[in-house]
């Protein structure tokens, strides 16, 4: 990442940056003119990689997570070379949806996929990817959703200052020609030909297990070690780390690991509080991050943190990942009947955002985020109603007020709000 910082940002001469970038492969500078082909004959020409764009804040190369709302919350997208950790909701309905959006985005953009799972066959996961929404269809659906939301007291018209009457209205719906970030229809499947055209590698852990199950606990890093070797082989052979000079165009590797940390991987942190090999998961994340930083790849991991018994492990795992997003669905909890949450399906907590080549965090001001899965679209919205929780004890708190109080120590605030939400 440091090398990328040297050549990614800043305003050096394009010639030297171009030569350095061939080795590091993480830049988005485009050079115009015929001089480009003369200077770098060994490396391919610097063209931007499909499906990526530089961040407006720090020049980092970003890929879309498959959900434009989440991209916006993360500051434009997921940075190449980082890990997005999703803390699963209790019944794993919405986190698997986010996982599939990430993979579907990779297929649409032509990225290479690597899918690892201990529960489902990767081929089956790919068959269940959602279909992308085409522009005219999604615009029609979005308009009809907006009409449904007209409430009776919408006759209060907003008076706008006269100077702004001529400015165009802000589009909050699917933008028709967005090449970065697409919308997906969760009710339809991706067309088969798109899946077959795409390049993907699958890692299904039960197949890689040795044929006889022995009763003594195998080394807990066994499953993780095999996965790391697999990822390393793919990165090396396909040249994502610049090792083989690529004649063809550079591409991004999207890695998706499902249910990491569950007992199906051979790890027992979900089963006991004092487990023997409690460091295998953290070692795995550390080595994975090293692999990602030296290659053109982005990784999504879903982890059932609600099952992890030792809370210290959760905080270590959070520190070792770059971006952490927690999902909390309302199914089965007392909040399903709370009128405050009747429009939503769950809460989204942005627990951590990385500081890549930056001194400050790129956190949005809005903390009360909820998501809902409409018939087709997955939207994330701020809870705009008054956030007071009326329980039997008539206790109420205003997270907005807390936000001002704890604005300085943001990381602790996230955990505080999470705990408070849990209590109520």
């Amino acid at each position: 990442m440091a090398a990328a910082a040297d050549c990614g940002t800043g305003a050096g001469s394009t010639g030297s940056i171009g030569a350095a970038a061939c080795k590091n492969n993480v830049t988005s500078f485009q050079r115009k003119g015929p001089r480009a082909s003369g200077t770098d004959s060994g490396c391919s020409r610097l063209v931007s990689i499909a499906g990526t764009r530089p961040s407006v804040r720090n020049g980092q190369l970003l890929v879309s997570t498959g959900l434009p709302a989440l991209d916006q919350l993360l500051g434009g997208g997921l940075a190449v070379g980082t890990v997005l950790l999703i803390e699963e909701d209790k019944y794993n309905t919405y986190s698997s949806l986010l996982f599939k959006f990430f993979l579907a985005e990779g297929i649409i953009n032509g990225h290479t996929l690597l899918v690892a799972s201990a529960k489902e066959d990767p081929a089956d996961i790919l068959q269940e990817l959602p279909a992308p929404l085409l522009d005219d269809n999604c615009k029609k659906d979005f308009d009809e959703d907006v009409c449904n939301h007209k409430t009776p007291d919408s006759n209060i018209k907003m008076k706008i200052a006269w100077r702004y009457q001529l400015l165009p209205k802000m589009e909050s719906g699917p933008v028709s020609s967005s090449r970065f970030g697409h919308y997906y229809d969760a009710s339809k499947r991706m067309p088969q030909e798109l899946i077959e055209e795409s390049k993907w590698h699958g890692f299904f852990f039960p197949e890689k297990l040795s044929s006889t199950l022995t009763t003594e606990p195998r080394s807990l890093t066994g499953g993780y070690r095999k996965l790391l070797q697999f990822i390393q082989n793919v990165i090396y052979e396909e040249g994502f780390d610049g090792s083989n000079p690529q004649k063809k165009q550079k591409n991004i590797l999207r890695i998706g690991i499902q249910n990491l940390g569950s007992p199906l991987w051979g790890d027992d942190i979900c089963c006991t509080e004092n487990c023997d090999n409690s460091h295998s998961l953290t070692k795995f994340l550390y080595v994975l991050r090293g692999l990602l930083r030296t290659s053109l790849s982005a990784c999504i991991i879903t982890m059932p943190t609600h099952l992890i018994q030792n809370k210290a492990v959760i905080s270590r795992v959070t520190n070792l990942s770059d971006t952490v997003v927690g999902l909390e669905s309302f199914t089965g909890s007392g909040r399903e009947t709370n009128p405050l949450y009747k429009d939503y399906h769950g809460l989204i907590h942005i627990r951590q955002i990385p500081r890549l080549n930056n001194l400050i965090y790129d956190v949005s001001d809005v903390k009360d985020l909820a998501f809902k899965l409409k018939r087709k679209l997955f939207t994330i919205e701020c809870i705009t109603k008054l956030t007071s929780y009326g329980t039997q004890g008539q206790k109420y708190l205003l997270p907005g007020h807390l936000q001002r109080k704890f604005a300085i120590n943001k990381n602790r605030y996230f955990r505080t709000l999470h705990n408070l939400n849990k209590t109520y």
Partner: protein
Amino acid sequence: MESVVAQAGLVLLRDSVEWEGRSLLKALIKKSALCGERVHILGCEVSEDEFREGFDASVNSRLIYHDVFRDPLNWSQSGEALPGGPLGALQAMCRRTDPGPVTIALDSLSWLLLHLPCPALCQALCALSQQHSCPGGGSPAEPVRVLCLLHEELHGPGPLGALSSLAQAEVILSGTMGQASAHILSRRPQQHPTRQTQWFSILPDLSLDLQGGPPLESQPHPEPHTPPVDPTAHMTFNLHLSESERAAKDSLTLPFQFSSEKQQALLRPGPRQATGRIFYEPDAYDDLDQEDPDDDLDV
């Protein structure tokens, strides 16, 4: 209840000391046996004779019993014991090659959890319940149903949570006043989890009698009706406007609103082009000497 429990996959029956689940397990086994499925039973907690009692001869002949109770550690060195212990037995069931729907009953999963490491057990259960194709290949997927009895008081939240996350359906037994009920949580792969409560009783011949609701005499007094939570109560400020306030708000002209009067005032030159005037009262310490601004510095 039958539709939920009849689906393929892992079904956990969680019982407790007050509401035992072995009779429900036996009732479900009897139902599958009468449907013509083959039933494999891994018996760990009770002896084979005790387990088979209550079943009539036709059902008994269809049960394939793997006995781990009599000699779990294979001390008697006879050829009857299962190779590889209970885990080997589970593995052997994974590798069956006969076609047809199969029900596998584990009695009980608690015994297996106490004797085997949890991750290995979870992996074996997952392999058992997700058999989509025979190892020989070719034939279409046959549903495999795995019924497991789990005594939830014996285990901590860790293993219970891990097993619940693997299960396609979870049946928690409870009840009131002698009437048993089953809270069924079913998680189909692509759908939202659904919950339902079913009151039932097991007849002496191990058939399942489903009932509509709790018995009348045992119905508890209806709880005092709690009003739905109203988030707009107990606030320190006012969310609604009264009529007079609304009228006042509507008639207010905003400062940057370009109304017609303002437009006319700007278009018509006023009688006095009085631009703003500045009134300045010099203070005692103010320096009025424009030439040397640093005069008061004493340097």
